[in-house]
């Protein structure tokens, strides 16, 4: 569609409200207000048309690596719309909010079990926000311990998500990046060589962004703990291990979750997400307040944590996302492990099917995702990612992780059926047969063709 901006409709507002004037001194009064002047029917058409120009999980395969774009079950949309939940004010009396608190408490309990940790805060609004919260806890912990002047460094592997170093810096730490070893895993020697009593924490995912499980994890944990530092678990890749193993048993101290990934809450075109944080018992007192606790059958908000970092979100977190995650876990129960297995089967099967055609570096056995390289095919990852759009699928995450040249990071998730994967593989193969001209011309059947991003950044236009 060639769709006008809302502001350009000028079809006349028809939202009915009784007219009314308030007595405000002229000094304070607004003179000009220029919002779109448009009928409700045109608002509906506008957004219906826009939505049809948007790809989503409900259209097809969406194998963005590390993003876990699984099907978002529709029963959760119903549940998230129950008015007894949606219409609660956060500052209402605890007694009025028992239902809301029960959900939050229940989710805390589930997340404890799933992570193998001891305490949970649901407050962070997104994965990166959870990282920031976790790192603030690290900071506060060492402050209370009187070591903050000394513990200045956070170590991060070069394969890590960009949010890790960004969050660490935000909390005032120096970031030390260590290279991966030849297997794409953590280089224990490199680690040993940088870890010291200046180290506050080591932030990693396991499996990592290559989809490879690092079986040195216990050793890694020992190295860190030997230096009095903490091990931080980035939960973005949780879909690989849910029900199989836990960060707790692997020796982590702090974990964040991405509920919108692992627990199937819809990603909303960029958010809202939710990024709860789980910690070991010795860090409980540092969690954001309140945490939800229970006394007999009464749920209450505990603000009394001795060393709490305070608040990290305005209230208690993204409740409607928490509710969906709770509901997802409650519904699937022990079957969540089967989802994990299927997600891993899908990734390995897809890697296997593509392996004769693309280079898939490092260890063969993958977990929930894998990274291929177009290096050696004569094609660029960018071109291939655009070419396959014409086949009604979404591209993998491209040019990440940075340690693989021309990387395409693919995570089919358990939602992908064999049929989906076979089709995706066939499209990826077809791309290799496409001429350079065809590749550069792609995509052709999308609502717009390739966009000049450099020009857009140079001639910034950020409003209509």
């Amino acid at each position: 569609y060639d769709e006008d901006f809302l502001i350009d409709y000028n079809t006349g507002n028809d939202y009915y409200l009784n007219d009314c004037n308030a007595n405000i001194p002229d000094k304070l009064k607004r003179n000009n207000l220029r919002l779109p002047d448009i009928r409700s029917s045109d608002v509906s058409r506008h957004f219906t048309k826009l939505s049809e120009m948007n790809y989503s999980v409900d259209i097809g395969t969406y194998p963005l690596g590390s993003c876990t774009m699984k099907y978002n079950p529709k029963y959760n949309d119903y549940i998230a719309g129950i008015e007894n939940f949606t219409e609660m004010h956060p500052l209402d009396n605890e007694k009025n909010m028992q239902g809301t608190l029960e959900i939050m408490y229940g989710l805390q309990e589930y997340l404890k079990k799933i992570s193998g940790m001891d305490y949970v805060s649901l407050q962070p609004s997104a994965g990166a926000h959870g990282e920031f919260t976790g790192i603030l806890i690290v900071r506060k912990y060492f402050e209370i311990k009187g070591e903050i002047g000394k513990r200045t460094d956070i170590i991060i592997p070069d394969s890590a998500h960009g949010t890790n170093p960004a969050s660490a810096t935000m909390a005032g730490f120096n970031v030390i990046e260590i290279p991966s070893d030849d297997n794409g895993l953590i280089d224990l020697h490199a680690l040993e060589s940088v870890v010291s009593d200046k180290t506050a924490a080591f932030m990693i995912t396991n499996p990592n962004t290559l989809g490879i499980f690092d079986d040195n994890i216990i050793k890694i944990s020992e190295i860190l703990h030997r230096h009095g530092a903490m091990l931080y678990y980035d939960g973005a890749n949780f879909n690989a291990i849910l029900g199989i193993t836990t960060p707790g048993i692997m020796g982590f101290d702090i974990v964040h979750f991405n509920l919108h990934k692992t627990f199937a809450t819809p990603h909303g075109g960029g958010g809202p997400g939710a990024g709860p944080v789980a910690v070991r018992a010795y860090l409980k007192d540092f969690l954001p307040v309140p945490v939800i606790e229970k006394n007999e059958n009464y749920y209450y908000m505990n603000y009394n944590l001795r060393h709490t970092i305070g608040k990290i979100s305005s209230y208690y977190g993204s409740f409607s996302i928490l509710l969906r995650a709770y509901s997802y876990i409650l519904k699937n129960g022990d079957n969540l492990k089967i989802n994990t297995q299927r997600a891993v089967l899908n990734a390995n099967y897809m890697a296997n099917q593509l392996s004769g055609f693309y280079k898939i570096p490092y260890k063969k056995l993958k977990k929930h995702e894998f990274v291929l390289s177009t290096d050696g095919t004569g094609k660029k990852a960018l071109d291939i990612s655009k070419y396959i759009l014409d086949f009604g699928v979404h591209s993998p995450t491209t040019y990440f992780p940075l340690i693989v040249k021309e990387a395409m990071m693919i995570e089919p998730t358990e939602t992908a059926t064999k049929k989906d994967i076979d089709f995706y593989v066939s499209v990826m193969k077809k791309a290799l047969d496409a001429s350079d001209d065809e590749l550069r011309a792609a995509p052709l059947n999308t609502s717009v063709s390739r966009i000049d991003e450099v020009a857009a950044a140079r001639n910034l236009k950020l409003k209509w």
Partner: protein
Amino acid sequence: MEDLDSMLNALGIKSIDELFLDIPEDLKVNMKLGEPLSEYDLINKIKKIGDKNKRNHLMFLGNGIYDRYIPHLVDEIISRNEFLTSYTPYQPEISQGMLTALFEYQSIISDLTEMDVTNSSMYDGYTALGEAVRMAYRINGKNEILIPENIYKSKLSILNNYSYGLNIKYVKYGFDRDTGLVDLNDIQSKVNENTCAIITENPNSYGLIDENVLSINEVKKNSLIISYYDPISLGIIKPPGEYGADIAVAEGQQLGIHMNAGGPLLGLFSFKREYVHKSPGRLIGEGVDKNGRRAFVMTLQAREQHIRRARAMSNICSNQALMAVAATAYLSILGSSGLRKIASITVNKAERLKSALKSHGIQTVFNGINFSDVLFHYGNYKKIAENGISGGLRLSDLTNIDYYDDAVFFSVTEKTEDESINELARILGDD
């Protein structure tokens, strides 16, 4: 039925367990999460939990989150699969719908605030304020931030967290004890060469529409103004862009987002054009495709974590995109006239609340013009609780201000019924 066996065969394995051989046995767990449920049983269970929430018809809560009416079209739009279940628009060619909607969001909030640029959302109002402080620090490198002495404690806590890694000092400025308005002289006396920014609030934390905020511009010297505003109030009161804000932030929940016990919310974040490269969060830019057709992309990504990593302007990845679409839909359905009416009704309802309580002997703490939140002298907390009234938040719980006796808030919106106001007045006044 799918042929799973053929997948296993292709991998040359007999069972899925073989795919987990890389995880040492002693790391494996046997987790019990319960029997799976049918969808019916699930919904039944959750509904029963929901029934434990009590929703009160005497609803006078506010102070940041407001129970406003949301046109159903807003919910309809954000429940469209294509918006709801899409990811961040990494492939713009198949994401023009969300990109256009977010560009419109940026535009509509910029128009609402009369600011140059608005980013594509922060988590909530308070974290947006935290990011604003960080941004101000990046802009001028100074380290004193002036804040209102009556700032909500929870807001301040977030500010402290957001500047935990920075060398920032918060200095409080005062309010006139009688009028409850900003003390401009106090600000003037506290602004110095180290002042990075002044955080202003309008309506202020006492709930008053504060005319002095409009004059802070005149005393700020070289510091920046970070304006915290109420987006609905901009239907009738002057926008931050008109009184010199460099960065303007707000909680956007009122713009079509259900309260949901406080989340998800929406952080509105706008600023002057010149600061764009120092700004946090996502930005959607207009460009053209190969065929010269208008198209939208995420732009200035070099500021962001996935490219700049440790030196990024913020760590934000997931944001509140869907809520931004809700706000866009809400504001366009209402239009200028609708927003003006809602803001006007709010002010009038607050007046009504004041006169109703006054006629039952309950006095306001200040005489100014209120927007949604009104501060009253009322000490019989027990009665509030016993009558199951949702409201009556204590000033001393929300802020560090303790020199007003028994000051409690009751808040209104355009939904507040006159009968509820009268009932509240009867109950509270009946001493």
